[in-house]
């Protein structure tokens, strides 16, 4: 069974091919790359290096967000087009859960974090179970402050994972003190192989045509419309 995994939900790019539970190849890059330029070439290169023809792919896992709107759309568009035209199952995996997998051996709470600007974050809280992660707090877009308050109440050791954690390290320390641990650089890279591992646990594949990113946030235009409508009431 050959799996292709793609994660372009944020500025890092990761592509992986897993064959019969062996990670054949994985390219993960933390460099700021243009996913539109680099994502599909990375998929092609991984297939070429692993000597795999596109039709040999049996299943596709993709990071469905949250994250960069454009980034996540590129990964999802590539994944759903491949899955549809190759007629293979498609699995969407949370970008946060996939990132949290880097802390899967941590005995405590795992908090993956993606910056969403203006002191907001995309985040979730997970706890490792055998081979999987259970959500203590679901994926969401929230104020960093709100997240830290929740974690304080949970009063357990927390491991923060993700490249963007740096941006908020001092605030996190201030609020959580020695309750908190920070993952090292090796653990901050989202890995497409983690997306594949999580996809393998899924009970059901996605409906390919209607599969869309998990933005976890409505657009500004929609928010304004809601505001306008509620003002009229």
């Amino acid at each position, binding site marked *: 069974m050959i799996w292709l995994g793609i994660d372009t939900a944020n500025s890092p790019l990761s592509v992986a091919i897993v064959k019969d539970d062996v990670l054949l190849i994985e390219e993960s890059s933390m460099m700021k790359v243009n996913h539109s330029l680099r994502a599909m070439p990375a998929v092609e290169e991984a297939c070429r290096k692993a000597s795999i023809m596109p039709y040999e792919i049996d299943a596709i896992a993709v990071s469905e967000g949250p994250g960069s709107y454009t980034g996540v759309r590129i990964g999802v*568009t*590539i994944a759903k087009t491949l899955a549809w035209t190759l007629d293979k199952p498609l699995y969407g995996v949370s970008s946060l859960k996939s990132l949290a997998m880097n802390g899967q051996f941590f005995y405590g709470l795992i908090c993956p974090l993606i910056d969403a600007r203006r002191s907001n974050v995309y985040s979730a809280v997970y706890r490792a179970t055998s081979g999987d992660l259970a959500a203590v707090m679901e994926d969401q877009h929230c104020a960093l402050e709100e997240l830290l308050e929740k974690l304080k109440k949970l009063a357990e050791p927390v491991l923060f994972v993700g490249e963007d954690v740096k941006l908020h390290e001092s605030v996190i320390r201030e609020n959580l003190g020695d309750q908190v641990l920070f993952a090292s650089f090796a653990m901050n890279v989202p890995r497409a192989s983690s997306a594949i591992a999580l996809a393998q646990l899924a009970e059901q594949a996605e409906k390919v045509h209607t599969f869309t990113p998990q933005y976890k946030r409505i*657009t500004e235009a929609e928010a304004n419309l809601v505001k306008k409508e509620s003002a009229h009431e």
Partner: protein
Amino acid sequence: MNKDHYILGIETSCDETAASVVKNGTEIVSSIVSSQIQQQKLFGGVVPEIASRLHVEQITLVIEEALREAKLLPSDLEAVAVTEGPGLVGALLIGINAAKAFAFANQLPLIGVHHIAGHVYANQLIHEMEFPLLALIVSGGHTELVVMKSHGCFELIGETRDDAAGEAYDKVARVLGLPYPGGPQVDRLALASEQSVDFPRAWLEADSYDFSFSGLKSSVINYKHNVEQKGGHIVPEHVAAGFQQSVVDVLTVKTVRAAKQYAVKQVIAAGGVAANQGLRNSLTAAFEKEDIPFYVPPISLCTDNAAMIAAAGYEMWKSGVRGDSTMNGRPGMQLRSWNE
């Protein structure tokens, strides 16, 4: 018997998700267009982020439908042609990445098409192009006069210096309080009106083929202000008619002049505003008088569609043009010749 060549076209440059299969560059086998007008109407215009979100929802459905209607398999195709630019970057990226993935999965060549070249080649789907040819491209984003000496050879002789014709239409529609998309409504009001308000025409320099519509738009706004300041009300029909006459007049006169100067064998109109009935009537009458063949595609081929991208893609494919998976969306892409 020569083998037939089928090209899959994909277009997502603005608010239409479209896919089409075209045979030998001239025959539409299928053309699917999923429009976002209903959703974008709520916002009074195209919101780029929403356009991108909707493209992701539609893209594989639309491509599947195009192949199903054509009763073809990916292996029957020669190449995949996709709009590379210009357009909304986030919207372009959906079509481009879908095209790349489809091309890779089915081991097909990928061709990046300029949106305006697509509009021009929409004409190839209704009759054979004869060169030299003059094309007037008018849409929400473009107002251009292009001379073609042969396939894939474009010489831009004039363009708008400010607003595109379609943009002016939409802005005036807003001034008149017409709902989005306003262009067609201005056309409808203008055609029904028996009177018109006189608005200026921007001819620019005597020998220029450039256009300018922002002054006209301001005149319409000023006119409304003046009337309302005196406690009166404007008659939208009369304003629409006057505005349309001004736009159509300038477009027609300049296109006729260019057609004569470049001694073209054929004049074509293309783009969303080429669906405008007032403009179609005016150009048809003017070129009938000049005895120069004039063509404009049916309305479904004037507005954005993927058949036109496949038609242009076919000519590029024949000329050996190939893209690869490093293709990026190019929002400000310039129209470049692929044949000199």
